[in-house]
């Protein structure tokens, strides 16, 4: 989520105090001058903008702009950032005119902030403003007022700034030549940050909005305090003790002081509020070259990267649109080094590769006519095999969705059941399935690759696995779960986890500081949740009829992964994922208004029979 990049920024300024940092800091001061300006938008609102211009005036430079809700710190024309300028150090050394702008209503800018500003396709007056128009007006001003510019503009940003990068695309200013939305927040009901398939991402939302939803009386350099103080070490316990979502507005917490928080709670289905904020429907007639970047282990906006690329591709087949997906957490591609994550060892510096071979070349090519650009349509890091793959399409044309059936005796099989049967579990909102083993205060990033053996041991988690694979299986593309279920309640969540089971002779790493036990490790490859009431429509939820078999079919975020020979493919099913996702009362009602007494146990059945064959479609790559 947006939260992480905020934390990362903080950490970066705290942690990165090595030699490199000092070098960067010296480089910035010796090669760039800074000024701060207010740029007027068409409706008269003025946006605070920091401008870093190369001191060397012997040549003209393109602009690289980041628009942000997180502040342009350090404020002050004499204050320079202690870390790099722009998206990466190479580009800083290449020299661009770097622009940081506080978006409308945040930090030092005037105006009113709106969560995920709805785009206006047809603007009828100067009062019709959105992020596209604000970017347009900013670019216009910059071209006219900043000397030594070469007339070209690039936009980039990660996470919320990734959204602003995307939002610059519709009706883009013609000077905007290259845009890189990275982990862009895209649709917060369907797959990014706030909700996944209508399931509320409690822990992230709560922590983030406590910070982000705090108030300002007017332009400020510092929002000061968060809305409230929390004081816990074990998020599972804290959120379980907190009780139903409505208690978040108790006097100790949001206390109805969170504007966006209350918007979230007020819109518990895919209504106009959320649809207006889905930027995908506005991504038409896109002219600039686009480089969408995302991480396979991005716990916040993986959906956004995949679906922004997809949406531009579908609606703008002629556009120069590319996708990069690497083995990254939220924003990890911007780190100096990224060779390991959880139990993964990628055997190479994946972020260094991205920086040198992809991002730097992209902007240099489109904004400076520098170098050749031989980037593929999709540059995809395949986990498991740990290889960069180049594709002409994403998903690749030679990948085919094939069903893997959940079968009797907890088997996962390519063949369908001939007999009738089901497995069942009791989903108990008082004892929800943890999303991670152990006690943590913050959301643990590694949950996306962690060992799922802790979950396999629970009675409320169903586990299905293939035989040992006789040959490797590579998946690349979209994953669908197609479940036939019944429940004794009238609503339920369904979490589907795709897992790579490592063989019994898998060695432990040497050294082994995490004390990993790799033999039989159940490594999470992909997981997703759907709130059952949205199984037929996100706009029009519908209750389950107790005991009636119903289909729940939904899409998981894509994956590119090789299950090696000797491994197994495993599917886990469960009906909670706590406190990542709030608990479903398992009763069909408005969940933000639910009372403690509304939460009830349900017995959930997953069918594996001919008429009702639960399965998962995996995009098998024919190689």
């Amino acid at each position, binding site marked *: 989520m947006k939260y992480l990049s905020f934390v990362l920024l903080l950490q970066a300024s705290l942690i990165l105090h090595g030699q490199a940092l000092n070098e960067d800091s010296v480089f910035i001061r010796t090669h760039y001058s800074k000024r701060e300006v207010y740029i007027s938008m068409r409706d008269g609102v003025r946006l605070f903008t920091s401008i870093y211009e190369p001191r060397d005036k012997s040549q003209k430079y393109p602009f690289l702009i980041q628009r942000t809700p997180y502040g342009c710190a350090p404020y002050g024309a004499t204050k320079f950032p202690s870390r790099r300028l722009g998206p990466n150090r190479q580009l800083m050394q290449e020299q661009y005119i770097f622009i940081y702008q506080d978006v409308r209503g945040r930090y030092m800018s005037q105006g009113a902030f709106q969560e995920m500003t709805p785009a206006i396709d047809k603007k009828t007056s100067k009062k019709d403003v959105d992020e596209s128009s604000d970017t347009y007006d900013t670019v216009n001003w910059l071209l006219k007022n900043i000397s030594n510019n070469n007339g070209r503009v690039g936009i980039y940003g990660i996470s919320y700034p990734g959204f602003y990068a995307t939002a610059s695309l519709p009706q883009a200013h013609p000077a905007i030549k290259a845009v890189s939305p990275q982990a862009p927040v895209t649709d917060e009901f369907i797959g990014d940050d706030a909700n996944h398939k209508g399931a509320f991402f409690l822990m992230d939302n709560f922590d983030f909005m406590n910070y982000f939803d705090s108030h300002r009386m007017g332009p400020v350099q510092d929002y000061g305090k968060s809305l409230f103080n929390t*004081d*816990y*070490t*074990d998020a*599972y*316990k804290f959120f379980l003790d907190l009780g139903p979502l409505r208690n978040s507005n108790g006097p100790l917490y949001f206390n109805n002081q969170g504007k966006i928080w209350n918007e979230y709670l007020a819109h518990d289905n895919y209504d106009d509020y959320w649809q207006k904020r889905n930027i995908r429907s506005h991504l038409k007639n896109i002219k600039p070259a686009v480089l969408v970047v995302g991480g396979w282990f991005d716990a916040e906006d993986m959906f956004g990267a995949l679906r922004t690329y997809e949406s531009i591709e579908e609606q703008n087949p002629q556009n120069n649109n590319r996708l990069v997906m690497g083995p990254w957490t939220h924003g990890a591609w911007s780190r100096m080094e990224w060779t390991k994550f959880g139990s993964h060892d990628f055997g190479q510096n994946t972020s260094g590769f991205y920086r040198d071979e992809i991002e730097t070349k992209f902007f240099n090519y489109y904004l400076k006519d520098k170098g050749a650009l031989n980037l593929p349509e999709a540059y995809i890091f395949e986990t498991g095999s740990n290889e960069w793959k180049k594709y002409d399409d994403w998903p690749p044309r030679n990948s085919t969705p094939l069903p893997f059936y959940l079968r009797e005796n907890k088997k996962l099989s390519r063949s369908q059941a001939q007999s009738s049967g089901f497995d069942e579990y*009791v989903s*108990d909102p*008082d*004892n*929800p*399935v*943890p999303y991670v*083993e*152990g*006690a*943590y*205060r*913050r959301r643990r990033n590694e949950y996306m690759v962690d*060992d799922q*053996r*802790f979950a396999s*041991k*629970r*009675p*409320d988690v169903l586990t299905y696995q293939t035989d040992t694979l006789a040959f490797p299986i590579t998946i690349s593309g979209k994953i669908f779960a197609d479940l036939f279920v019944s429940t004794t309640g009238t609503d339920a969540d369904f979490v589907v986890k795709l897992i790579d089971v490592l063989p*019994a002779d898998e060695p432990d790493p040497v050294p082994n*500081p*995490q*004390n990993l*036990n790799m*033999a*039989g*490790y159940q490594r999470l490859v992909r997981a997703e949740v759907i709130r059952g009431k949205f199984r037929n429509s996100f706009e029009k939820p519908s209750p389950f009829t107790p005991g009636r078999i119903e289909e729940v079919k939904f899409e998981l975020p894509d994956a590119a992964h090789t299950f090696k020979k000797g491994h197994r493919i495993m599917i886990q099913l469960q009906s909670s994922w706590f406190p990542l996702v709030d608990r479903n009362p398992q009763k069909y009602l408005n969940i933000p208004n639910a009372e403690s007494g509304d939460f009830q146990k349900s017995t959930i059945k997953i069918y594996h029979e001919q008429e009702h064959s639960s399965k998962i479609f995996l995009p098998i790559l024919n190689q």
Partner: protein
Amino acid sequence: MKKLLLLLAVALLNLTAFSQDHAKDSVWIRENYYKIERYIPMRDGVKLFTSIYIPKDSTTRHPILMTRTPYSCAPYGENAFNAYWDSYQREYFREGYIMVTQDVRGRWMSEGQFVDIRPFNPNKKTKRDIDESSDTYDTIDWLIRNISGNNGNVGVFGISYPGFYSNMAAASNHPALKAVSPQAPVTNWFIGDDFHHNGAFFAMDGFSFYSSFGKPRPAPTTVGPTGFDYYTHDNYKFYLETGALKNLAKLMGDSIAFWKDLYAHPNYDTWWKARDARNATRNLKPAMLWVGGLFDAEDCWGAWNAYKAAEQNNPGKSFNKIVEGPWYHVQWANRDGTHLGNIQFGSNTSEWFQKNMEIPFFNYFLEGKGDISAIAEANIFITGSNEWKSFGQWPPAAKQDKAMYLQPDGKLDWTRPTAAKSFSEYISDPAKPVPYTEDVHFNRTRSYMTDDQRFASRRPDVMVFQTDTLKEDLTVTGNVIADLMTSISTTDADFVVKIIDVFPDRLGYTDIDIYAESDPDKTYPMGGYQMLVRGEIFRGRYRKSYENPEPFSPGKVERVRFELPPIAHTFKKGHRLMVQVQSSWFPLADRNPQQFIDIYHCSDSDFKKATIHIYHDAVNSSSVILPVLP
């Protein structure tokens, strides 16, 4: 278990990072001692292999201190010295003790036939009537006659299985035997030590131990048995996939006699009763110092209960005392007694024990040296408050048993519940047994005894009851009784009761930065920690009798009442007391098929889910009875 002891001994030998002092001690022992190896003949002609370390100093006479062991008196060879200098036992060398180790009958280099926990025979009639007690008698007799320079006083000590042999030694009542310290003595393998706890089979420890230890030894040897080759090092997976106990027996093979005995004696029959070491606690002449660990995963039961039996069977005996510290199996004999797992004790409790209890005990009774007035009747370390306390009796005279009642809504307090009908319900599924500890691992951990139970609290098949935040310290010393009113949907079930200290969410904890969780590899989040203080399992079919198990009638409310090993713990002000109830503890204990059938011979298909009710109403109230120290 004993396997651990073996591993530790090996570890001690291998440890290289030793200070100058230890190197000096090594040289000193070699310069001042010589070692001989002898076969000592028993009354029936069988000869037992014995290593004897004798001081060269012949100006004074020396006491003998002996351990009898099934784990070998390696290293073999009169020039090969055991690394005593790496252990506190170097103090006995400095003191000039004659140190003796003997392979028990039928093990390693000794002749004869080994019998596991060989029954004590109080009525030996002929020279063929031997037991471990007579072997000890004959050995002592030989030693005092044949080892020159001995002062006629003999002590015996040993930990775990050697603790059992120490108990048997005491019962020999050889007049030269003056002091015995059985430590974590194997005492009863059906009720509470190693193989079973209250009839539930500790399959993991038993299998890993006996798949090597239990192998036949046809002739004397210095080479030990090999272990089992596991296909996975995830013990939960191994035992779950192996399934019913009869499958485990197949893996064990048919050469291991004791394994077959286990399967032939599922109940507490005369076979088991003959193997209760408490049979050897009558008319004990030597001074006795029983030693145990409060967090001993193997023989926590033995020390408490053998001490208690010796008290009851020897009224008026002047020196029959007990030491219990916050220890894992053998920890009191190790260097580091400062912590176990995540729990800190605030001092080096092992060193304290060695210096203030064991060494003064032997010096006094074997050499007439020093002062033992500091050794109280019961010397008990209270965890939580982290202090040693002396008591005139155990349990302390001042303790008062008070029932802490399970309540509706997961509450726990001193008043009997008032609801007309109230129960908690869970489904116990043998296909998904509750893990005994959180992490994936291979060897049974020793720290599970103090581990964080949050992972269990989160499960739907674990019932959690807890008090409000305690307004003052609550110290509990003695046995805890679990008194459950339950009904089950099948005919058998296990009941695990766990007594837990819930730490405050915010807490200043010794040497641990509880907010440093950003690096989970280095620290553990102690805020809200659910410290296991005591857990115990009970196989429901034995609720009325260990000898004559009885099925449950499905749906009928029945009482399951059992004793947990003693605890000595202060639940501090600001903490909470929690009780967890569950019906599996895997793979520590085998899974109950939840049907009243022969568990050792039933099939995988016999394992059934059971719905279990734990009642907490005015008529059927469940409680834990706590021995509260005012």
